[in-house]
């Protein structure tokens, strides 16, 4: 890549980058899973870690499984499904005698494909993969078996043992996987957002001086939205201009945004609205903490300013951002095209941080998103209500989310949901920084905010799987200037009322 900077972008580069990007994109087709291979000694490291923690549940603690029928599991495609097939599943099959068929799926089709099977009662899948936003819906419809029920039936440690097993997981994430006090799924992929930025630019003395002269306050990592807008505009420069004391070979933009017609645009908007203290729709609880209903808050002043903030940020984003999703946004930082990705999912850190290997002298860092309330959530796995082999499925879920499973996930660059893995000193070293360097920051944000975000309508409404799409459409209309901000939000409010009325669990309350 440095070669490209020296000689300019050639035709060969164009072909090569297209091909490489196509490969990378398919590899990160799962929710931000990095496109790099497992290290050769991953198995060895996992085995050592497991041996050093004999008290934690691991493969050897799975009892004799009586039902030997094959199980079919849905997992996000990418390195994780590959690793399962080559490393974890053979061990599981050897131990239990239960064969496992893996159905790899990209996360953007996961909901619809599994939902069709569940509605058709085909029994096609034993183990389901679910995003936090559709756990309430599937739980309410009885599509997923409650974990306590499974533990009572198949696990000698019973409900207490399962409660103990779930303790190392982030409490906020577990709340998202719980419906009416019953956990239905165990999280394994934490996608809390962070502000990923180029420290070599934001911390450069010349840039700091120039920024202070221009804006009248010091250049720091943005913590507020007005600051973010200023820093983004400041680093938007044309090829030939200087950045960090060197002339730019290509245009540099302040921010990468996921402004395409995908659901992630809603996650960016949400982080801004929540960061400003607002909401799309607010969950109202009674004195006993029982959900009474939802109050639609849009289009209030906060949501309108949030949308205007996004539009302002777009001015400092590459024009192509209008069609981007998370792989492209992360890739923009990796390719040295942007100074910041303000609402990047932390499980994409290995992609954004790869800028350091591609452009020597650069430095990637991660901080809390401006406003301090990132979009947070997780992907989890649970047992389908119509599983052919619920016993095998239960032990598979427990094995996959065990210390051993999450350790393997972390080694591959995934963002685990167990604190005992995330905070393991092994991952805090400089050597692991480009793979696991976002863990410490991610832990702070997940701990600080996840429990609150779990109470949002996003994670309590049984219609959220459907409302989510409408939020994204409204956001896309706003950024594409197809509609003015207020009417677009007004229309969205009506849609939320409609969908919640048609498919939701709780009523819409008058504000």
């Amino acid at each position, binding site marked *: 890549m440095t070669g490209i900077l020296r000689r300019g*972008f050639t*035709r060969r*580069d*164009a*072909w090569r*980058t*297209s091909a490489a*990007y*196509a490969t990378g994109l398919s590899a990160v087709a799962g929710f931000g899973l990095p496109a790099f291979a497992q290290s050769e000694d991953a198995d060895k490291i996992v085995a050592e870690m497991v041996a050093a923690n004999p008290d934690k549940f691991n493969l050897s603690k799975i009892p004799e499984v009586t039902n030997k029928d094959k199980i079919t599991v849905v997992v996000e495609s990418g390195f994780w499904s590959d690793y399962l097939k080559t490393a974890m599943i053979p061990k599981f099959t050897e131990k239990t005698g239960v064969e496992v068929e893996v159905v790899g799926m990209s996360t953007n089709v996961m*909901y*619809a494909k599994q*939902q*069709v099977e569940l*509605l058709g009662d085909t029994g096609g899948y034993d183990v389901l993969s679910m995003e936090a936003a559709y756990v309430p819906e599937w739980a309410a*419809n009885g599509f997923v078996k409650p974990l306590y029920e499974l533990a009572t039936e198949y696990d000698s440690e019973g409900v207490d043992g399962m409660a103990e097993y779930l303790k190392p997981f982030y409490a906020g994430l577990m709340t998202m996987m719980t419906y009416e006090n019953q956990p239905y799924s165990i999280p394994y992929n934490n996608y809390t957002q962070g502000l990923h930025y180029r420290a070599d630019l934001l911390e450069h003395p010349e840039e700091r001086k120039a920024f202070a002269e221009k804006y009248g306050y010091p250049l720091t990592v943005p913590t507020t939205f007005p600051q973010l807008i200023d820093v983004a505009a400041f680093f938007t420069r044309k090829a030939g201009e200087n950045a960090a004391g060197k002339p730019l070979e290509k245009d540099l933009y302040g921010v990468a945004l996921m*402004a*395409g*017609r*995908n659901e992630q645009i809603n996650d960016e908007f949400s982080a801004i609205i929540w960061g400003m203290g607002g909401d799309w729709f607010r969950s109202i609880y009674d004195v006993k903490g029982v959900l009474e209903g939802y109050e639609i808050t849009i289009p209030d002043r906060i949501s309108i300013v949030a949308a205007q903030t996004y539009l302002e940020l777009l001015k400092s984003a*590459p*024009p*192509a*951002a*209008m*069609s*981007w999703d998370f792989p492209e946004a992360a890739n923009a930082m990796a*390719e040295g*095209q942007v100074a910041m990705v303000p609402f990047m999912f932390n499980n994409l850190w290995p992609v954004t941080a790869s800028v350091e290997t591609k452009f020597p002298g650069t430095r990637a860092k991660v901080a809390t998103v401006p406003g301090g309330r990132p979009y947070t959530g997780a992907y989890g796995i649970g047992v389908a209500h119509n599983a052919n082999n619920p016993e095998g499925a239960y032990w598979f879920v427990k094995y996959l989310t065990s210390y051993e499973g999450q350790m393997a996930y972390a080694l591959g660059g995934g963002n685990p949901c167990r604190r005992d893995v995330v905070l393991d000193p092994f991952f805090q070293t400089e050597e692991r920084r480009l793979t696991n360097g976002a863990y410490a920051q991610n832990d702070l944000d997940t701990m600080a905010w996840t429990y609150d975000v779990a109470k949002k309508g996003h994670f309590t409404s049984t219609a959220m*799987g*459907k409302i989510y*799409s409408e939020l994204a*459409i409204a956001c*896309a*209309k706003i*950024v*594409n*200037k*197809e509609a003015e901000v207020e009417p677009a939000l007004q229309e969205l409010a009506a849609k939320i009322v409609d*969908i919640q009325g*048609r*498919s939701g669990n709780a009523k819409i309350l008058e504000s």
Partner: protein
Amino acid sequence: MQARPSVSTVPTDAKEAMAPARSRWSWRGMVEDDAIFKWLLLVPALIFMVALVIYPTVFAVVTSFQKYILPRPATFAGLENWRWVVNDAAFWSAFLTTVKFVVIAVGVELVLGTLIALFLNREFRGQTVIRGLCILPLVAAPFATSLAWRHLYNSDYGVINYVLQAIGLPRVEFLADSSIALYSVIAIDVWQWTPLVIFVVFAALRGLPKEPFEAAKIDGASAWFTFRRLTLPMIKPVLLIVAMLRMVEAFRVYDILYGTTRGGPGTSTETINWLIFREGFQYFDLGRATAMSVLVLLIVLVLTNLLFQQLIKAIRAN
């Protein structure tokens, strides 16, 4: 076709004539009775038609009058879904986008396909290779094609923008600029489906009689006159058939959008099928999804019927 003589009135041999009268509804009786036998031959096809076309269509029409949101049971809803569809701005916006897509894509494919077919209908060096290459886009899966095009269109590393910049033209946001995103998607469809038109028209050109063209040549008719007054009228039925096939196919466009714009930027490339998919397979509101589907079906039926009438006229004229 010569009628099959009835066995009951024309005995074939004395042995059969002496046999006791066979029931008309016995297997042999049905086979030997022309009036029944012709229906018997149609039964397998009819079963398929009923199971795969008529039943689903009737089911869709019935469902369009129901409130049917899975997994809840269906209840009668009268015209509620239809009222919703007719009043839904998103539906009409998507409908307009679909019509634009169909008219431009099919129109360009027909013109371009016919021109290329005329070119290929000559003898030239490497003709077999060129004709063979033309079929390649047809064999690629539309979704895979759309992913490849997504990369070709990319403004940062896409080959198309590289070429544009190399010849001094500005970079184009093919998929991110809402004013051109639909045309970029149409271009993919044209690339993929023009070969179909090429081969159908090419086959038609090959089958044309030589005499009228020789006569026109002797009379000194220009190439344009010959094309307009001879070739075009003669291949018109084929063009109408291919137009009909492509129109129906283009109305169903979904996979190209899935791999490229996903309906965006904003809703600028959102087509009817995209909307139906969302309502049916994301929201699982079968009532509304089928109401939209039935409405689209009716519109496509009317358009197909118009083309069909033209086809009949063209066949009669030939």
